[in-house]
């Protein structure tokens, strides 16, 4: 689900199309899956070509390397790595992923609903 915030229009479809034809995507991501797909999957998806997965394959079994396949990730650890970075991964700022979004993202990564 994408919710528009501060767009000054009554669009509730999430596409951000305004009446005058101008696009506007000043959106607030309020969905863990959407956040994961925007910020994480390019490095942590399954298969070759994902630098984070490639790195994790060096220290754990291949089937545990993609983040969504991990069954041992404590939520606090996920939050720590997002804010602190880890190995090649730089930190993510609250202006990118705010604390409420980080909760949703963490729930998605550590939960079973994916």
């Amino acid at each position, binding site marked *: 689900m994408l919710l528009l915030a*501060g767009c000054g229009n009554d669009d509730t479809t999430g*596409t*951000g199309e305004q009446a005058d*034809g*101008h*696009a*506007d*995507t*000043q*959106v607030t991501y309020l969905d863990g899956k959407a956040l994961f797909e*925007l*910020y994480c999957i*390019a*490095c942590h998806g399954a298969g*070759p*070509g*994902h*630098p984070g997965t*490639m*790195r994790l394959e*060096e220290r754990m079994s291949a089937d545990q390397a993609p983040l969504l396949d991990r069954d041992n990730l404590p939520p606090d650890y996920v939050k720590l790595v997002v*804010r*602190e*970075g880890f*190995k*090649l991964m*730089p*930190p*993510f*700022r*609250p*202006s*990118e992923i*705010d604390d409420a979004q980080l909760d949703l993202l963490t729930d998605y990564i550590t939960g079973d609903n994916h």
Partner: protein
Amino acid sequence: MAVHPGIVAADQAPEKPLPESLTPAEFNRAVAELRRAIGDEWVFTDDEGDLRTYRDVYSTLPDEANMPSAAVAPRSVEEIQAILKIARSYQIPLWTVSTGKNYAYGGPAPRKPGFFVLDLNRMKRIIEVNEEHGYAVVEPGVSYFELYNYLQRRGSKLWIDPAAPGWGSVLGNLLEHGAGYTPYGDHLLMNCGMQVVLADGTVVETGMGALSGSATSSLYKYGCGPWVEGMFTQSNFGIVTKVGIWLMPEPPGYRPYLVTFPREEDLYQITEIVGPLRLNMLIPNAATTVGLIWEAAPNATRKQYYRGKGPMPMRHRRKMAQDLDIGMWNFYGALYGPEPIMDNNWKVLEEAFRSIPGAKFFFEGDRPNDPAWRYRVKLMKGVPNMTEFSLMNWVGSGAHIDFSPRSPVTGEDSMKQFTLIRDRANEYGFDYIGEFLVGWRELLNIFQLIFDRLDEDERRRAHECFGHLVNDFAEQGYGEYRTHLNFMDEIAGTYNWNDGALWKLHHRLKQALDPVGILSPGKSGIWPASKS
């Protein structure tokens, strides 16, 4: 009043560096005013918490060298104006970043410790996409991923041109003179119109945008009178809050190709061949000749082939090249357009490349499981991804700073650049990890100086190596087009013709446009008069 971490005690020496202009008490007052202006949650001062996310984790220097004392993240031009008013009042240096992903050149960190970061990542509006005329207008926080996703959701037939890491800012990369891999790869060339907030809060629309009600703001670049956009790139004369960017219409055909070459010395002939083909547009996109390790990195790490210290010996590199079926150099290009045009152009290209003994050709379908091929195919048709970051896996906790000189497109220049960098890197114990791009009439050599960021000795050696390279290349008449925070003064110093006349002009402009000296002091070696 709420107690915020990172607020400093007014009656004792602060535990963190502050801007030179501020006492601890003034710092606290300024922060309180900023919180009132843009909201409590978007002002960051906690050195042990959120503010740490603003450090440059890829720097060759310790974190402290570039740690801000605070960061502010506005969401609108009006909030920027409010911040500027406070900054002018307290003489606060504001270091502007967009998505803050300009890693290798500083990331979200400021030039000097204590500066405030003006973080524009929350300004995420895609203000306009024009399918008919092929452009978008975006704010600083819009990443390549976000613009691409937006166009895809709407079924657009417009391509974007991402830098290799897709998390970068469309606007920020353009302002840094960044490049991509489609025929629209020169990002500044594809800019049309800007909105700039000056240090005094004045908002300026450039080009045709200066005409009230203009319908051509994103169609014609030059307006009437002086063309000023370039002045706001790699500079600190204003805060760019909006850009128009031309987008390439999807062509009727796309045919990527890879040609591998077995010997290091083949670079000479590759460059001689590619230069005229690029100049005459038979190669219409950024023609990229990728070195062995860069090409190998999505598939391999260094320790899989060599566990010794120092640069990887040639016999190990040959083994890696053989295993991965890649060359010492690997040329990526693509054909675009109707089939008959691509067929005819390919005849010319194939004949040219075949003149190099050992050249091997690969096309769509030949390397289905090779992530290196796959990400290049994506980049050359404007699909953002992060695969190139696999380079950070080459050593343990990989980090990099990039050395990026430009030269004429000749075989002699390419070999001279390559051997200069390789020998200097090897002297300091690093591998040569580079690629050569022909933008149009110039050759850009990107050398990724990759080091283990958790190894203090490697960081120190990388810093020294980089400093030597700046001098080496200046002596040969080569200049870098962009650099890391900590080498901006050194690079500026190499542009010294006529007693540094150009940088003297920059400083006169700085004084005129930002007399208090609050905007990104030191950017590109341009300092306010008070700090010159």
